[in-house]
C-alpha cells in the first residue's frame, strides 16, 4: 500500500500558455475588490460601531457592500433574555423546556408568603441560546433580545437573576418578533374522578388560577358500606386559561390528573 510517488501528468493550467495572465488575472481580481472596499467596506469597526446601530438598518446595509440589509434581519437574533417580572406567572415551563437545565426558578418579591412568586434565573455559563424557553413561555414574558455581549470577570456574574433580566426588559431592546403558535391538537389535563380526594393541591398551586374546586354530591352510603374518606370536591379546569404547564399533575398526591384528549 505504498503511495503513489510518481505523479500523473498535471492537467494544463488555464493560463500556462500565457504566463502574463496567471499573474495578471488574480491581481486584477484583487485590485477590483480592493477599490470596491474603499467606499463599500464589508466589515464593521466593532467596538465603535455595532450592527444594531440605527445607521446599519435598512439601506445602509446594502450600501456597505452587503447585498442584504443587516438591520432588517437582526430582530430575531437569539441573545440575552429579557424577563417581564410583572407578567410572569411562575408556571415553570421555561425551566422544564431547557435542554441544558440552566434555568432555576427563584423567589422574587411580590408573591404571597405561602406561595412565593418564582421567576427564572438563567446561568449563561450553561445556556445554549436555543430559544426553547421563550418558545415555551405562554405569556410572552421571557423573550430573547439582540444583546450579545456577555463577558464577565467572575463566573458568578454569568448567573442572571430575574431582576437583572427585568433591567434588560426595561431597556427596550428589539425582541424576537417571530412567536411560536401553540399546536391545535394540544392535550388537556383530565381527571380520574374515582381516585381524586378533593385535596385542593392543584387549585392552590395553579399559576393561572384556572382550576376551581366544585362541590360534588356526597353519595349516601348503603348500610354496611364504608364511605371513602375524602373532601367532596373535584377540580374543574378552564381549558381556555390553562397554559399546560403540568404543575397540577406534579403536585397531585394521588396521581389522578393526567394528559389526554377529551372525547
Amino acid at each position, binding site marked *: *500500500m*505504498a*503511495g*503513489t*510517488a510518481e*505523479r*500523473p501528468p*498535471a*492537467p494544463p*493550467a*488555464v*493560463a*500556462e500558455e500565457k*504566463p502574463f495572465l*496567471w499573474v495578471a*488575472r*488574480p491581481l*486584477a481580481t*484583487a485590485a477590483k475588490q480592493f477599490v470596491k472596499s474603499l467606499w463599500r467596506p464589508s466589515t464593521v469597526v466593532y467596538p465603535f460601531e455595532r450592527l444594531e446601530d440605527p445607521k446599519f438598518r435598512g439601506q445602509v446595509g446594502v450600501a456597505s457592500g*452587503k*447585498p*442584504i*440589509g*443587516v438591520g432588517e*434581519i*437582526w430582530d*430575531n*437574533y*437569539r441573545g440575552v433574555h429579557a424577563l417581564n417580572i410583572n407578567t410572569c406567572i411562575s408556571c415553570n*415551563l421555561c425551566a*422544564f*423546556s431547557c*435542554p*441544558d437545565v440552566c434555568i432555576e426558578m427563584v423567589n422574587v418579591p411580590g408573591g404571597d408568603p405561602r406561595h412565593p412568586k418564582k421567576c427564572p434565573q438563567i446561568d449563561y455559563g450553561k445556556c*445554549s*441560546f*436555543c*430559544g*426553547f424557553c421563550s*418558545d*415555551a413561555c405562554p405569556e410572552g414574558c421571557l423573550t430573547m433580545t439582540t444583546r450579545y455581549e456577555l463577558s464577565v470577570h467572575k463566573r458568578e456574574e454569568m448567573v442572571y437573576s430575574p431582576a437583572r433580566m427585568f433591567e434588560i426588559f426595561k431597556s427596550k431592546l428589539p425582541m*424576537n418578533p*417571530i412567536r*411560536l403558535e*401553540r*399546536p*391545535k*391538537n*394540544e392535550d388537556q389535563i383530565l381527571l380520574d374522578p374515582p381516585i381524586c380526594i378533593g385535596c385542593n393541591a392543584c387549585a392552590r398551586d395553579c399559576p393561572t388560577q384556572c382550576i376551581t374546586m366544585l362541590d360534588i354530591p356526597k353519595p349516601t352510603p348503603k348500610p354496611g358500606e364504608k364511605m371513602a374518606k375524602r373532601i367532596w370536591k373535584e377540580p374543574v379546569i378552564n381549558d381556555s386559561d390553562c*397554559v*399546560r*404547564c*403540568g404543575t397540577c*399533575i*406534579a403536585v397531585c398526591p394521588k*396521581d389522578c*390528573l*393526567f*394528559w*389526554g384528549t377529551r372525547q
Partner: protein
Amino acid sequence: MWVNMGPQHPMTHGLWNLRVRIEGEIIKDVEPELGFLHRGIEKISEDRHYNEIITLMDRTCYVAGLAWEHLFILAAEQALHITPPERSEYIRVLASELQRIASHMMWYAAFVQDLGLMSPFLYGMRDRDLVLDLFQSFTGGRLTYEYMRVGGVRNDLPLGFTGQCRRVLDWLIDRFVEYDHLCLASTIFHERCDGLGVLPAPEAVAYGVTGPMLRSAGSHRDLRKDRPYSVYDRLQFDVATATSADVTGRYLVRMEEMRQSVRISRQCLDWLDDHPGPVLAAQLPRWLGAPYAPVGNESYLLKRNYPTGLGFSMIEEPHGEAGAYVVNDGGEHPYRVKFRSPVLINVWAAKRYLPGYRVADIPPIMGSVDVCVGECDR
C-alpha cells in the same frame, strides 16, 4: 521517525493529531489520532426529547449545522411516524443547500490558507457571511440554528426573504468566478495541488470514503440522486464530478457543487413563492409540540400507547454521506441514537492517500479533505 502534527497545529483545523512516519521528506506511514473532541452526543441524546437533540446537532458539525439537523429530523420522523408538510420539506432543502454553500465556502477559506494564500481566505469568509445573514433572518442564529423541528420547521420564512435570498445567490455566482480566477488560473496553485493525495475510486469505495472525495475520482455517487430524500427527486441538478482524484479534483468538485446548490436553491425559492402553507405538522405527540411541558406521571405514556418505530436516514452532507439511526421505544426520549460521520472515514483513509508524498504536501491534502472534527468525534 514519527512526527506529531497536532493536536495544536495549523494544519489540523480542529483538535486532532496526525502522527506521521517520515524518512527524510517522504511520508511512509500515517496514523490519525481522533477523539479529542468527543462529547458523547449519542449518549446524551438518549436523555433528551426529540426536539432537544436538535441543539446537539448544531454542535455536531459546527459548519454544517442545518444539514445535520436535517439528517436527524428525517430519521426521527421515520421513527415517530410523522409526515411533515410539503412546504417545510422545501424549506429544509433550501436550508441544507445554503448550508452546503456556507460549508464549502468555509472549506475554501481554510484550504487556500493552507496553501499560503491570504486574500482568497478573506474572500471566502466575507461571502460566507452573506449566507449566515440569510440564516439569521429565518432561524435567528448564525452558527447554532435550532431551526428544524420534528414535524416541520420552527417558523416560516420571513417576509421578503425569497427576494433577499435571490440577490445573495446572484452575488455569490459572480464570486465563484473570482475564486477560480484567484486559484485555478494560477500556475502556482496547480504546481501545489495537481497530483497530490490521489485516491482512486475503487479504493475510496473500499475505505468507505464518500462525498466530494469520492466524486473527485470520477464516481457519480450522490445520495441526492441515488437515494433521494426529502424533495430532491423533484429538483433538477447535476452531480459534480472530476476525474483526477487529487486535490485539484476536490477543489473542482466543491466549486461545481456550490453552483449546483445555487441552482437547487433557486428552484426551491420559486416553489416556496407559489405555495404558501403550514410549516409544522398539525398532528404531533404532545411532547413534540410547542410547549415542552413535562409529561407528568408515568401513566401518561402508557395511556397514549404511542407506537414504537425505527428510523434510518442518510443524506448527502457537505462532507460526505452522513447517516442517522433512531430507535423509538414509545417514550419521550429515543432509546438509541447512532450517527455515521463521513469525515471520520475520510480522515482514516489518510493511511492510503498520504504515504509517498512529502511533508510539505500534508496541509494541501488534508485541507482538501475538509475535516470537521466536531462531527468526526461527536
